[in-house]
């Protein structure tokens, strides 16, 4: 156990956290391959959110919030509007960046108004319509209510109150026709939530190579390595016991909370930092920096106890929700705090048995997978990338972000 912990720490500290030195940065997802226009994009988005896609169940639209083009158009505008933060600098999309898989490739943990720190990684909102509850700690059950917290959180968009946001929207002339079209009524808390919900449920994509192979019966859709990876994923590695694959669809999550050992490992590192830390100062140039120097320019970081912060049940310490794995190739970095840069780092963490804490989920144990087997699983995970990401970006960018 001790050795496993040491290995995990070693894995996290010098190599994984600073990433692949000198590697070329990934290219953002381009919208160029999906021609769209300012007027008609929402009908495609609506159709997508109403039509079951290969490998996915139907989108669970709430009975009192059926999607419409008008709601989707309004929701998109709200999602990208930088005016909806106290000092006009943050929108939802500043952390959930379309070209970066509606996540943020450039930050392990998110940054809010005035540069304030958020302790967790901004998760992708692609396929968020299937998730309940929401957030890494599951603190909100629905998209219709979830949006309030980021709008008023001091370290996110920092509005003084949610009523202030409603009043602000009713004062912006460009919103009036959109609320009228969607609801025949002015902005209200409920209507903002419904519009944001409708837009985000349109960010739904199945139809990956895996879907075409597993559910579509196309034998050629998945290469041999990925097929071997699938066998390991559902067999020896047992990933699928949490990242579920059903007979007719797969969300790759059980929507439950688990202690993989990772959360506690990270919290222990926060409280007991290492003597030095590798810092990349230029491509291929890394210095081991004395941690005291880093501390001299560091504000205290918040502790993160995971699900416990919602339930205050001792058994929920260090638990985080199982993330879905679709499109994870475009949502690095990984884990709830973004400290793992590559899929290889994540697989290595699980292969050595997680952090080796005594209380961690029993399914996290040393897997003894060979490098070839790890590569096969990675090939499988890379086959979970959907067709149509370009169109999500094109629709998102059908209008420029709103600024004063």
């Amino acid at each position, binding site marked *: 156990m001790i050795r496993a912990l040491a290995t995990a720490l070693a894995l996290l500290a010098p190599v*994984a*956290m*600073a*990433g692949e030195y000198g590697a070329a*940065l990934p*290219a*953002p997802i381009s919208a160029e391959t999906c021609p769209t226009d300012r007027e008609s994009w929402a009908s495609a988005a609506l159709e997508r959110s109403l039509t079951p896609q290969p490998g996915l169940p139907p989108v669970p639209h709430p009975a009192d919030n059926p999607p419409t083009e008008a709601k989707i158009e309004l929701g998109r505008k709200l999602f990208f509007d*930088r005016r909806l933060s106290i*000092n*006009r*600098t943050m929108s939802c999309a*500043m952390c959930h*960046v379309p*070209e*970066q898989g509606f996540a*943020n*490739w*450039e*930050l*392990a*943990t998110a*940054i809010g108004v*005035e*540069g304030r*720190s958020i302790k967790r990684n901004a998760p992708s909102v692609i396929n968020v319509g299937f998730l309940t509850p929401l957030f890494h700690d599951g603190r909100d059950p629905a998209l219709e209510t979830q949006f309030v917290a980021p709008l008023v959180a001091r370290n996110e968009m920092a509005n003084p109150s949610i009523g202030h946001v409603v009043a602000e929207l009713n004062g912006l002339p460009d919103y009036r026709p959109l609320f009228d079209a969607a609801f025949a009524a002015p902005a209200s808390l409920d209507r903002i939530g419904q519009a944001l919900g409708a837009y985000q449920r349109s960010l739904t994509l199945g139809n990956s190579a895996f879907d075409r192979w597993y559910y579509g019966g196309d034998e050629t859709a998945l290469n041999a390595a990925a097929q071997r990876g699938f066998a390991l994923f559902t067999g020896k590695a047992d990933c699928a016991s949490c990242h579920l694959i059903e007979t007719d669809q797969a969300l790759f999550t059980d929507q439950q909370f688990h202690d993989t050992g990772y959360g506690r490992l990270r919290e222990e590192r926060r409280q007991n930092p290492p003597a030095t*830390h590798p*810092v*990349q*100062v*230029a*491509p291929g*140039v890394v*210095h081991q*920096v004395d941690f005291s*120097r*880093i*501390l*001299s*320019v*560091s*504000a205290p*970081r918040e502790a993160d106890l995971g699900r416990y912060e919602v339930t205050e049940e001792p058994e929920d310490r260090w638990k985080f929700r199982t993330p879905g794995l679709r499109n994870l190739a475009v949502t*690095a*970095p990984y884990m709830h705090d*973004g400290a793992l*840069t590559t899929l290889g780092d994540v697989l290595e963490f699980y292969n050595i048995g997680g952090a080796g804490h005594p209380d961690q989920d029993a399914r996290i144990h040393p897997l003894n997978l060979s490098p070839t087997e790890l590569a096969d699983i990675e090939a499988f995970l890379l086959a979970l990338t959907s067709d149509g990401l370009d169109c999500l970006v094109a629709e998102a*960018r059908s209008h*420029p*972000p709103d*600024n*004063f």
Partner: protein
Amino acid sequence: MKRREFGLLAAAAVAAGSPFRAFADETCQSPYMPKITGQEEFVYVWTLGVEGMGDEQDKLVTIDLRPGSDTRGQVINSVSVGGRNEAHHGGFSADRRYFWTGGLDTNRIFIFDVHSDPSAPKLHKTIDTFVKDSGGVVGPHTFFALPGSMMITGLSNDDDHGGRTALVEYNDDGDYVATYWMPTASDMQGAVAVGDAVADGYGYDIRALIRKNVMLTSSFTGWSNYMMDFGQMLQDGEAMKRFGNTIVQWDLHTRQPKKVFNVPGAPLEIRFPWGSNANYAFSTTALTSQLWLIYEDDAGEWQAKAVADIGNPADIPLPVDISIAADDQTLWINSFMDGKTRLFDISDPHKPFQIYEKVIDRQVNMVSQSWDGKRVYFSSSLLANWDKKGEDDVQYLKAYNWDGKELVEDFAVDFYELGLGRAHIMRFGSSALYSS
């Protein structure tokens, strides 16, 4: 005949290379601008508001530098602008009547009237629409005066708060004119990448050598990084990959990029010398701690090369502001982490070497010197969330005399004790500039 007289006079003037009106002052301004010859009378300090301190707002602080004045070395004026905007850099308009200052966070630009009463600048105009005007540029940084307009470098953008950005031009009335996006590997705009340079599209500083029609820009990082806690960023492997590694050479007249140089590790300030035959510029890289020379070679091609280390790069001293002497012989280089200023002999620009160093305080950022080089001023703040924490977070303006051998402190103003905030860029003022 008049024409020939004019021609002779003009030729003599151009040959002498003397700027219009032989004023002179701190040496890092736009060459288009009138300068203070003798004694600077005031220093304007663009200051970041701090939560829980004073009125918490960003402000332009004026300190009296007039010899013999009863208030010399004291704050004699302070204008609060509302909010914390990440006050950072500023620059005078080409006629030096207005001081443009930027907020890197909120993208607001505050234009102060410094000519009506140079001892008490007044807020003349606020531009609130920079992001919308420019088509998505975030983080107005350097304000570089051109005849009739102000060229502003951006640091980020409103799509992702990353480092891809642009130059933005406004006219002297504060109306938007044009946006010039930095070249990127996927859209070089006709520019050529030199050697293994990869155009990253990042921005920071801008300077020009008019005689050569050369404009240079450097590259820092996007909003997410410059706004976040410095210590957190150093531990964020993803964030540390998002720093600029380029200097771009532009055609000043056409505003078109020509060459992209590989200058790894966030090249920041750019300084051209004043000499009429000096065809080079210096820059320092913040993360890799090197002094770089951007120069025209014998074949007339511009090149970039590292010419010296600044301290021990492995310690990440973080060189920040630099100031070149009017005679082009020496260069002050501040480094933030060790709080030091270093003086480099740059008489041979290809072989600079350090000749002096002194710890100014626990942190130091900006440096400005008088035209004669005898007075050197330092200020403390780098960025609100990059400044040191706790006891090390000292905030000041310090004035020194330089006798060629030693910096001797003249006076210091403690910006925290006075409830002002974090002291950033310093610019000099003088009533002698305005005769009416």
